[in-house]
């Protein structure tokens, strides 16, 4: 009995000491969490892990102002496995943790859309570094924001670029996901308007054997093959198309922006008409503000950041700034989730490393950058040196 009393007593002492320690750092020991959701395992983990790392780096570097208010911010990384079911299950765990005040996340629109329904139902703010499907914001949720462009614009950028290259015929393939099919449909529509002949429009979930699909593609010998979807499928498709003697041009979307593409496709991406992809996120080095980020990222993780890592950094920065503003408005207390969501929308001209952000009333950035990039080297380690052939700044459609 006495030992038990003693242990309770010692626990209390330890707790009060911890409080005192925190107290010395700020006003009182209040801690909050900011979650990330991205694929940390599986085919798309190359990108997903760096989204987490970008957010982690931002939290380390930029949580100073919050700590001055006595609020300690921690990172809570979740693995959505690029799978909608997993994303939603994680989302339920996230909203049930009252300490989580914001979520940076999702690489895949197909995962973000159902997961954000959960965030919306409990008023938790979500800032997306990579989701481009229009539906992400067109639902008009106060909680959902993104700092990148949209597929309905990205498809148009791709089709306009194809026109500028003198493309007359095109074969469109997509991966049957909300993201890939969506972008492919916008591309197809604009391509037809631009006077291109669309020889075919096919969806496929195949990952390995594209022989049958390629028969009508190669037979039509189009000037361009467009793929709406992810690199791990697109690169295999492109490689097999080249092996079957197709010599035209390939064009894909920001899902193609992964060094895995070079690992799979190798020299076949450079041969013939070459390979291009449109994206809402250039290599981190094209943004004027990223020099320090690149250096710090390299120092901390000993790797060059994959696409969207810098965007994740900015999403985290926006979350931290919004929480800080909301806390200040609430007398330096931990703000409510609703207050944070409103604070995100209230930000004006927030200076991040990839741009200056003001959100419109549905959560799109008022101006977004779009790039068309050409694959320059078959060497995966040189992926981030790919050449930007076109840059556009376009406002989202209303």
């Amino acid at each position, binding site marked *: 009995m006495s030992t038990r009393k003693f242990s309770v007593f010692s626990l209390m002492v330890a707790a009060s000491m911890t409080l005192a320690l925190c107290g010395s750092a700020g006003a009182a020991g209040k801690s909050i969490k900011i979650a990330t959701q991205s694929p940390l*395992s*599986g*085919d798309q*983990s*190359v990108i997903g892990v760096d989204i987490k790392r970008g957010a982690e780096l931002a939290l380390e570097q930029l949580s100073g102002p919050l700590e001055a208010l006595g609020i300690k911010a921690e990172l809570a990384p979740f693995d959505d496995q690029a799978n909608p079911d997993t994303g939603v299950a994680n989302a339920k765990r996230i909203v049930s943790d009252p300490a989580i005040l914001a979520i940076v996340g999702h690489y895949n629109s197909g995962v973000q859309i159902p997961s954000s329904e959960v965030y919306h139902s409990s008023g938790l703010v979500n800032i997306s570094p990579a989701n481009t499907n229009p539906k992400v914001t067109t639902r008009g949720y106060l909680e959902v924001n993104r700092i990148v462009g949209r597929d309905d614009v990205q498809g148009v950028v791709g089709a306009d670029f194809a026109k500028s290259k003198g493309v007359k015929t095109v074969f469109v393939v997509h991966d*049957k996901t909300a993201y890939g099919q969506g972008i492919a449909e916008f591309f197809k529509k604009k391509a037809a308007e631009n006077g291109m*002949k669309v*020889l*075919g*429009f*096919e*969806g*496929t*979930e*195949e*990952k*390995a*054997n594209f*022989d*049958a*699909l390629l*028969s*009508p593609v*190669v*037979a*039509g*010998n189009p000037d361009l093959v467009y793929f709406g979807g992810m690199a*791990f499928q697109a690169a*295999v498709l492109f*490689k*097999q198309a080249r*092996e*079957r*003697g197709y010599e035209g041009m390939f064009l894909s979307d920001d899902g193609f922006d992964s060094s*895995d593409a070079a*690992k*799979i496709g*190798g*020299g*076949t991406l450079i041969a013939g008409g070459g390979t291009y992809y449109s994206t809402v996120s250039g290599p981190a080095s094209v943004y004027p503000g990223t020099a320090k980020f690149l250096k710090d990222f390299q120092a901390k993780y000993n790797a060059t950041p994959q696409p969207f890592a810098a965007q994740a950094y900015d999403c985290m920065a926006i979350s931290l700034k919004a929480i800080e503003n909301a806390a200040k408005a609430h007398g330096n207390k931990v703000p409510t989730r609703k207050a944070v969501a409103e604070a995100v929308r209230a930000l004006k001209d927030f200076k991040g490393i990839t741009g200056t952000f003001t959100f419109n009333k549905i959560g799109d950035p008022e101006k977004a950058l779009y790039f068309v990039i050409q694959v320059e080297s078959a060497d995966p380690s040189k992926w981030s040196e790919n050449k930007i052939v076109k840059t556009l700044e376009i406002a989202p459609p209303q």
Partner: protein
Amino acid sequence: MIRFLKRINVYELVRPVGQMVLFSLGSAAFMSAIAISLALALDGTAVGASLMDKYNVSLYTYTMLNLPQVIIDGLTIGFVYAAIALGYTMVYGVLEFINFAHSEIFAVGAFVGVELLIALDGMGILAGASLGMAYAYLILAIILGMMAAGGLAVAVERVAYRPLRGASRLVPLISAIGVSFLLQDVIRLVESLTSGQFNRIMPTFGNFDSRIVFGKIAMGTSKLTLGISVKSIIVIGSAVLMLVGLNYLVNATRVGKAIRAVAQDRPTASLMGINVNRIISLTFLVGGLLGGAAGVLYALKFTRIDPFVGFFPGLKAFTAAVLGGIGNMTGALLGGIVLGMLETFAGSYMGVFTMGAAGSEYKDIFAFSILILVLIFRPQGLMGKHVMQKA
């Protein structure tokens, strides 16, 4: 030497090659006839007009000009299916149970082979390898994949099936499904721990990616290149070698006689002094060896593998085995070739024949509908019951 040569049963070497040629030509001719008659029927309709608008050729010309390439593609995947299907059918012939873990044994073979090549590539050996050495490394990878898969198949039989041999027929089936899931996740675990990434990519080396071009055919405004990639030839060639070897083993050797005896009547075979357990292990070993080799060949042909890579080829090979008549080796060969052809024909032509409404994404529905039809009218499969002996 001459006595040794005399003992070789030439008939059993020629017969399977003859069968393969016959099945390939037969299914190619049959499928082509269907495709051509469909094309002729649809040429005058809106389908023909839409194709004319896009490709500037009539549907009939389009179908004819694409035929050779489609047949080559169909044969390549067909032989891969046949090599896997033999693993299912051998085990069924001997034990009358379906080894659903065979698809993962295939995947393990693929992973072992690809990991070896990735390791060699990492050491910089592959990049500078001469053509002969490139082939030597590929053969080494195939052999290693075969050994790993064969050993695993034997171990799975010993651990998960043999203790259940007396139980009712459903019990080992459930055990097989369990082993299948277990192996998938073991591959995932091992790959995640060692490489941090469980989708692996076959390194590019040798001349496997290059293409032998037979010629160009003008079609409308575009030109068709007719050719076959080196790796397709390797896949077909190795599959033919393995199938001939297996046929010889089963039909022309003492061991093969023992396998057939066990398949016909296990208790009687054991009374005749055949070690039944050893023969069953041997059956699994042979099935695993074939599956492992097919795995490495699959990775070579299609570049990218993941822990679930076995699922679809396994399912299709099982279908091929059933289509041909499960338990019958010739049937598995026929089923594999027919299924590969069906799938490739459907995938290549359906989009054009339906004006893009049902493209190659529906190829599996088409292939499996044929399976259902065959099973309704011939429940024993195409070759079932024709041949008296099994295995």
